[in-house]
């Protein structure tokens, strides 16, 4: 199911605008965000905290917090509009179409249910996941229970949990952080979603465990053709896993390109600065360049291009006109006046 579409767009976000209600007024938090993810592809969404990357992701399964509202744009999942759907329809999207993996597995997992019971619950909610897998369209209740349990073990095996027959009977607190995150990934895959959204899923893990999870994700992309929206602040993770990259700054996508073009020839001054601010383990020590200043507060953003007060190549119009995204190469878009983004 996932990845069956090949080159068809699984997710298409167009000109998404979101406002947050803070202190009695509405503040623009996302400005014309556009993203496309094709089947089997991994899109890395990068930016610093407050850039709007998590907010963008939350809009997809309709999980915006109560103080946020969508004021424009469209989100199409497998060709169908998600915005404006009823809560019941959104629940359908959440259970089957989009799987969200959050940073902290302990808050996601139910502490009083065994791992197996939590995965089996998915099959209770979506019995068609089991019916479709074997002969005999309708299973008895008992046979279904049995099948659900066996499937749970298989999904734990898929995420390379050692000794899954034992782990499936354990409670989340008996597992380490890395194991818990694997369980959450297994739960995401069990739903056979069209799209998996992973929001900073290795941030709370140690580097050696993070390496295990990253190589697991790389394998899953191949073995189950997972379509992945990978949200991270770590340029290293993006370089390792993503096919395409979108860089966000202060509520806008400032550049998007395939991963090699972005790392070889980033065009937006922020994207370039972000790459230069990342120290590398092998590289020389001198390429370590700091970006002056900090990301502006959403409540009081600068006019024009929001990066202009920090930009080393600022032009006159940057302070007044917000640059539009323009295509500068195959699949490479940049929102910067240096590349002619004059409109909007």
């Amino acid at each position, binding site marked *: 199911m996932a990845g069956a579409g090949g080159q068809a767009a699984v997710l298409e976000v167009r000109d998404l605008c979101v406002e947050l209600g803070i202190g009695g007024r509405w503040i623009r938090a996302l400005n014309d965000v556009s993203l496309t993810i094709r089947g089997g592809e991994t899109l890395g969404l990068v930016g*610093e*905290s407050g850039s709007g990357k998590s907010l963008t992701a939350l809009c997809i399964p309709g999980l915006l917090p109560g103080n946020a509202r969508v004021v424009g744009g469209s989100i199409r999942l497998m060709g169908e509009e998600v915005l404006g759907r009823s809560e019941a329809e959104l629940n359908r999207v959440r259970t089957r179409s989009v799987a969200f993996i959050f940073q902290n597995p302990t808050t996601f997992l139910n502490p009083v249910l065994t791992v197996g019971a939590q995965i089996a619950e998915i099959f209770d909610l979506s019995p068609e996941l089991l019916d479709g897998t074997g002969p005999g369209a309708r299973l008895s209740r008992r046979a279904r229970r049995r099948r659900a349990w066996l499937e749970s073990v298989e999904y734990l095996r898929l995420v390379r949990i*050692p000794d899954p027959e034992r782990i499936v009977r354990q409670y989340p607190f008996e597992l*380490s*952080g*890395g*194991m818990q995150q694997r369980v959450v990934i297994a739960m995401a895959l069990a739903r056979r979603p069209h799209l998996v959204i992973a929001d900073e899923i290795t941030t709370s893990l*140690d*580097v*050696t*465990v*993070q*390496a*295990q999870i*990253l*190589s*697991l994700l*790389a*394998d899953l992309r*191949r073995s189950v053709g997972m379509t992945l929206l990978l949200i991270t*602040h*770590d*340029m*290293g*993770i*993006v*370089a*390792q*896993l993503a096919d395409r990259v979108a860089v966000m700054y202060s509520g806008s996508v400032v550049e998007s390109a395939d*991963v*090699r073009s972005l*790392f070889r020839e980033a065009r937006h001054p922020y994207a370039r*600065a*972000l*790459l230069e*601010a*990342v*120290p*590398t*383990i*092998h590289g020389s*020590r001198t390429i*370590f*360049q*700091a*970006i*002056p200043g*900090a*990301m502006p507060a959403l409540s009081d953003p600068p006019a024009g291009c929001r990066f202009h007060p920090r930009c080393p190549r600022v032009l006159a119009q940057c302070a007044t006109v917000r640059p539009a995204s323009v295509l500068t190469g195959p699949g490479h878009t940049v929102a910067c006046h240096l590349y002619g983004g004059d409109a909007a």
Partner: protein
Amino acid sequence: MTTSPVLEVAGLVKHFPLRSHLFDRRAGRVRAVDGVDFEVPAGRTFGLVGESGCGKTTVAMLLVKLLAPTAGRIAFEGRDLAGIRGRAVREFRRGVQVVFQDPHGSLDPRQTMRSALIEPLLTLGVAADRAHALDRAVESVEMVGLDAELLRRLPHELSGGQRQRVVIARALSVAPRLVILDEPTSSVDVSVQAQILSLLAELKRRQGLTYLLISHNLVVVRYMSDVVAVMYLGKIVEMAGSATLFTAALHPYSTALISSIPVPDPEAPSVAALARGDVPSPVRLPSGCRYHPRCPYAEPVCREVDPPLRELAPGHHAACHFPGVARRSAPVAPAGRTG
């Protein structure tokens, strides 16, 4: 002078007793720091790196007398910390300052930056009176690249990067000789991290400071340090000059840590997960070499005998029965991008 170390640590041990129940007195011990030796030469940056639970922060707490060691010796500028009392403690606190990870926790939410900066200057007797202290506070705030106007503000009125700069300004205002940096940038974004690290490097150069940098972030340690020690479950498993450690590590754990880091270059080889499983609990330590259950190269001897930290090349120490095994072995098939 340059040869004498600012800080000497020998046989340092810190065990925390563990009581699971009120009446159960012998539930066990957390062996947080379990025999650590190192020296920090003057004017250098010594990096202490390891994953969570390896004991690096406990080392920092022991070094500044926030905890008392179970055993071992810590000497600052040749003077043993165990015996000092009263005035000598104050003198020591002027000499050694700490910058902790979380600037929220290091600043009183109801104290203005002005009083946060003045307080240590008066308590430690660096400034004679409030006026002098204020002059010095302004000076140190400007030194870290902030505007003196900021002194009137409360912590919540500052950004994360500004708060961390204030904490650095406060640590440096008493003119310490040694600064302990415990995860100084792990709470800030990458662009701010770059600013803070360049600032720390510049301040060190200008004021001839000595740093002890504690971090889980190998890249930060690589960028900042002259000498690096890798800790695992309470012990140093490898110690070498920074360039040597990152290019020619001898301990399989160091190799695993280094190859775990995702390189920000799509053409670079993928991360390799060379360490199996998770860090075990420091309450029930594995027998023999503590790393053996996770080590892909472990032999029977590793289960039985704990290898001591030995100097294998000038200035390069490692605690492994088969040093360099990870580099000699064929690389474990990296899992990652195909084409």
